C-alpha cells in the first residue's frame, strides 16, 4: 500500500511514517496543502491521510481540491484532527462527499490503530 501522509507537525509526521514503514507500506510525506497537491500530481497513492489543521490552506481546502479532479476523487481519505468529532462542524454527508472514509481523533488513535484502519479501507 502506498500512502500520502499530509501532516504539518514534523515529529508526528515522522512517527506515523515510521509506523507505516515498519508495517511494510510505502509513505510519501507532505507538510502543507500546496505541497501535497504537487505530490499527488506526480505520485499515485492508494490512500491519503490528511491533517485537518494545516498552516496556510487547511485540510478542508485540500478536500475541496481533491473533489475537483476525477482521478483524485476516488482516493479514500482518512481525516485526522486534534479536536473530537462532536466539535467538528462538518456533517457526515459532506465528509462522504469528499471521500473521507474515516475521521480520527489524533490523541486517541495510536499508529497501530491508524495502520489497521488504513489497511482495512484499502482492502475493501
Amino acid at each position: 500500500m502506498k500512502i500520502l501522509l499530509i501532516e504539518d507537525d514534523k515529529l508526528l509526521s515522522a512517527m506515523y511514517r515510521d509506523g507505516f514503514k515498519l508495517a511494510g507500506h510505502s509513505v510519501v510525506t507532505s507538510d502543507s496543502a500546496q505541497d501535497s497537491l504537487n505530490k499527488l500530481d506526480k505520485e499515485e497513492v492508494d490512500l491519503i491521510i490528511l491533517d485537518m489543521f494545516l498552516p496556510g490552506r487547511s485540510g478542508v481546502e485540500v478536500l475541496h481540491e481533491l473533489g475537483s479532479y476525477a482521478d483524485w476523487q476516488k482516493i479514500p481519505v482518512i481525516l485526522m484532527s486534534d479536536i473530537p468529532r462532536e466539535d467538528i462542524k462538518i456533517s457526515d454527508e459532506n465528509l462522504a462527499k469528499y471521500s473521507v472514509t474515516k475521521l480520527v481523533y489524533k490523541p486517541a488513535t495510536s499508529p497501530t490503530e491508524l495502520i489497521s484502519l488504513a489497511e482495512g479501507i484499502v482492502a475493501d
Partner: protein
Amino acid sequence: MMRITGGENEMQTIISAAVYDLKTPLTLIRGLNDLMNSGKLDKKSHDLYVSRIATSVDQMQRIIDTISSLDKIIAKQQSLPIEPVNICQVVEEVAHQLDSCARDYNQKLIIKHGRTSAVVLSNKQALESVVYGLVDNAIKYSTPNSNILIRPSLASRRGFTRLTVRDKTVGVRKSDISRIMKTLGQTSSPNPAYGSNSGLGLYATMRLVESLNGAVGVKPVPGGSSFFVELPIAQQLSLYLPKS
C-alpha cells in the same frame, strides 16, 4: 482568534489553549510508546523515541506549571512569591531541556552571556515558564538549520537584567507585535514544518513577566525577531562575568 476579556473568561481561554497544546505531546507519547512495543525498532530509533518521549513529558510538565502560575495570579489574584533567582542558571537548565527538541529541527541553541547581574528578583517556576516559552517559540518559528541566540545581559534600564531570545524567522511585523502578546488563540506558524499552536506560551510570558514587575517586548531584526524580557536585579554585586 480568541480575545481575552479578563477574569474568569481569561482563565477559561487559557485552559482551552492549554488543553489544545497538551494534545501534541500526548499523541507523541502514546504513539511512540505504541511503536516501541511493536518490537520492530532498531536501537537507534528506540533511543531517539525515548528521547522524544522525555521531551514531550517535559513539555506537558511545563504547560501544567505555567497554568498553575497563571491560576495564582489571574484566578486567585495572588502575588507570586518573589525570591532571588539566578537567571543564567535558569537559561542553562531550560536550554538543556529543549536542546534535543531544537536538534530535531536541525537548530542550535546558543547561549551568549553578556556582562550582567545573574540574580534577579523573580519566582523560579514562573521564570522557568517564561524562558521555556520564549525558547520554545523560537524553535517552533525558526527556519531549519538556524541558530537561536539566548543572551542574558544588563538592560539599558538601570537596575534591570534583560534576557533576549533571537530567532531566525520570516520576521514579525510591527502591527503583529501587540497582537502576538495580547491575544490567545490558534495561530498557524509561518513555516510549514512546525504545525500550529495556541499562542499560550507567549501570552503566559507576558502575563507572568508583568506579575514579576518586569517588562516584555519583541522587535523585528534582520532575518528574524528578537523577544526580550527585563526583570529587576536582586543584588547589584552579583555580577556574572562570562568565562574568557
